[in-house]
């Protein structure tokens, strides 16, 4: 199959896709790097030449930088904990034989197909609105004062919305992993005198280890870049300004392309550090 001719033909045919993808990635990356070293204020004089590392220094020394990093991490970790814990429980529930299993599984997966913008709007207007939202009605029904979710509890609200979106993904991956568990192992554990809770701890959880690592890895990469949910709900106010949202504000609200680009470069570095870190964990986990 792999003759010299077929190999060079394969390279030739793959070339357009590779060139396209490479261009798609390299052009924005190089432009970001380029702008990050220039003073570029589109509405206040345009491109004003080189500034060296000024933009980088300004971005990290700004009072908004560390809070933004912190916010990003809180959202990522919070969503990960909620989705993994609930995902494991839901996966075990869905693994049980029950009536209407197929329909239930599709319903559970459904939130993943809703666009982030749409789901954030639905949550904001349908559930969390302090006057007409379902939560407000529920609170009033029990005689409590409705909560203004997105201003008084902005971070928990955002974590809740994003968790709702990512829970199906975690559940789906964990469900397939649970289904691959040999039922004889659980029976053996039962014969060995392990009650249900210990069966979970000693058999099911180690079996899910690999799937959980993969869920954490993939979700972290996507969660570091969440934007639409924040843009639609709080607009970055009430302590919900993440790193990606800060970059957006620098570029579009402050009209400072240079400063925003420098932030973008930081975000690339941060994402890569996280990715390397996670890849090592996954690599270790996959070896065993």
């Amino acid at each position, binding site marked *: 199959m792999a003759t010299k001719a077929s190999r060079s033909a394969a390279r030739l045919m793959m070339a357009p896709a590779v060139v396209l993808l490479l261009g798609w990635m390299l052009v924005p990356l190089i432009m970001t790097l380029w702008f990050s070293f220039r003073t570029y204020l589109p509405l206040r004089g345009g491109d004003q030449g080189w500034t060296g590392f000024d933009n980088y220094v300004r971005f990290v020394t700004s009072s908004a930088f560390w809070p933004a990093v912190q916010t990003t991490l809180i959202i990522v970790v919070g969503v990960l904990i909620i989705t993994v814990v609930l995902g494991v429980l839901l996966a075990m529930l869905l693994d049980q034989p029950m009536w209407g299993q197929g329909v239930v599984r599709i319903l559970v997966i459904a939130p993943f197909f809703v666009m982030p913008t749409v789901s954030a709007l639905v949550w904001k207007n349908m559930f969390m609105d302090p006057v007409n939202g379902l939560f407000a009605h529920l609170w009033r029904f029990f005689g409590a004062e409705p909560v203004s979710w997105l201003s008084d509890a902005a971070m928990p609200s955002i974590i809740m919305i994003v968790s709702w979106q990512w829970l199906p993904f975690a559940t789906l991956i964990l469900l397939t992993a649970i289904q691959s568990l040999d039922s*004889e192992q659980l*029976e*053996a*554990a*039962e*014969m*060995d*005198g392990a009650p249900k809770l210990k069966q979970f701890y*000693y058999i099911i959880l180690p079996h899910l280890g690999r799937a959980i690592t993969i869920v954490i890895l993939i979700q972290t990469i996507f969660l570091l870049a969440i934007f639409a949910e924040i843009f639609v709900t709080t607009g970055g106010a009430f302590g919900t300004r993440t790193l990606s949202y800060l970059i957006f504000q620098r570029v579009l609200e402050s009209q400072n392309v240079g400063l925003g680009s420098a932030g973008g470069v930081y975000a690339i570095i941060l994402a890569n550090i996280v990715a390397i870190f996670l890849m090592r964990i996954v690599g270790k986990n996959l070896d*065993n």
Partner: protein
Amino acid sequence: MGQIQLKQVTKSFGDVQVIPPLDLTIEDGEFTVFVGPSGCGKSTLLRLIAGLEDITTGHIEIDGTDATALVPAKRGLAMVFQSYALYPHMTVRKNIAFPLRMAKMDQAEIDKRVEGAASVLNLTDYLDRRPGQLSGGQRQRVAIGRAIVREPSAFLFDEPLSNLDAALRVGMRMEISELHKKLDTTMIYVTHDQVEAMTMADKIVVLQAGVIEQVGSPLELYRAPRNLFVAGFIGSPKMNLINGAEAGKHDATTIGIRPEHIDVVQSDGKWQGTVGVAEHLGSDTFFHIHNTGLAETLTVRAIGDVSLRHGDTIHLNPRLDEIHRFDAQGLRIA
């Protein structure tokens, strides 16, 4: 101690009764083999005894006390599964120690028992490996080790050798038999392979469609099969079953004769036919014989290497005192 008694036990899945009322007693220290074709309910029966399935009606008594409602762990039985069911993320040591840890046993005692089981099963060098790094036979031994350390009143084996290759199977067969002699504990062994049943069992229980066809020692079943099913199931190659006029001569509807009870003679045999396929095993030769006018094919064992070729005419003399006679219901005529 490990006497197990089943009293009028039945099992239904929905409307389908897979085990009609069944009585069986397994004596303490006995090696009992449940044998039957696949789907005959032998594994279900084992799982009922283990407690992994609930029985629909009836009682199970272990050592004289009713165990019908006990959970598996409380029955004092240990099971070796077909897939071994080892815990893949634990080392061999942890696998074997698992039931003891669950019983909250003292760590020193756990270590002692694990080392003991490992030396009995030749696993000492592998204690710190994971199941994934072991061969099939070694995994099998780990599964047995996990059962031994609990010092159960009976062992249950669910087709434990079916995932091993033929050579290893013979070896493990011996090892399990040795183990039974050494521990002198009740063992119940499920298999579809009648050779395993014949070689290992003190008592064989032949099952078909959830019904016990016959219970007895291997040689009892070989010498006096109670009906046609047992006659055809026990013994390898299968017993020749002959209907029609030849059977009529013996006042039976069907007669059966084992391949080893038909002698090949040079001429003037009582029966004759043409040689079909010959299987040369060295020590014996099995001939498949056609055109005898008795049955479609007749299997005959000849000692040593007999030089008859495909298409040759062969003369046969059945040993008349080895003929089994069965009536129209398929039951043995004494």
